[in-house]
């Protein structure tokens, strides 16, 4: 699974700490999410999508393979 968090953060001028604060996680979690090394829970994915006013599918891109 890939995601557009880095791109959307840049669009909204948010730092990793800002996003972490908004969704209530540690900054390291955002770092690992952006690197694709961590798949978030459904709740965290939803919270992140909410921050960017998008749906989960628009932020997280599922690769069937």
């Amino acid at each position, binding site marked *: 699974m890939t995601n557009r968090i880095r791109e959307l953060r840049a669009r909204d001028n948010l730092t990793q700490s800002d996003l972490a604060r908004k969704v209530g996680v540690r*900054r*390291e979690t955002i770092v690992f999410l952006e690197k694709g090394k961590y798949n*978030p829970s459904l709740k965290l994915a939803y919270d992140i999508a909410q921050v960017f006013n998008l749906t989960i599918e628009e932020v997280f891109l599922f690769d069937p393979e």
Partner: protein
Amino acid sequence: MQQNRWNIRKATFIAVLAVSVLVTMIFWFVRSGATLDFAGSSIMIIQFVVLAFAIIVVFRRLKSAKQNLPAEDEMSKGILRKSAATAYYVSLYMWLAFMFFEDRIELERSTLIGAGILGMAVIYALSWIYHSYIRKSHD
């Protein structure tokens, strides 16, 4: 804000605990008149590793509190769970090895048990480091 205060309190508690363990260790060592032979110095080194781990945890918590971020979240809790599971399996093998070498090592039973408990703490610390920094995926 409430979360932040809780983080600082928890970090302070861990720091006080770590310092009290260190002071007790030094006090016990000085009072007992024990010498730093191989076994004694090994246990001392292991104890310092455990304390260093506690200090790292305190710094991480204080750093998060300073940035107004939670000290724990779903990923860090997952890492703790995986570290505990790995440490449990490895510790079983460590105790098996201790049982095997029990007759061959000239150590008192209480010292052996103490070394085992410290060994478990070290295995947990190493497991946490592996899952936090070395393992490629955190899923």
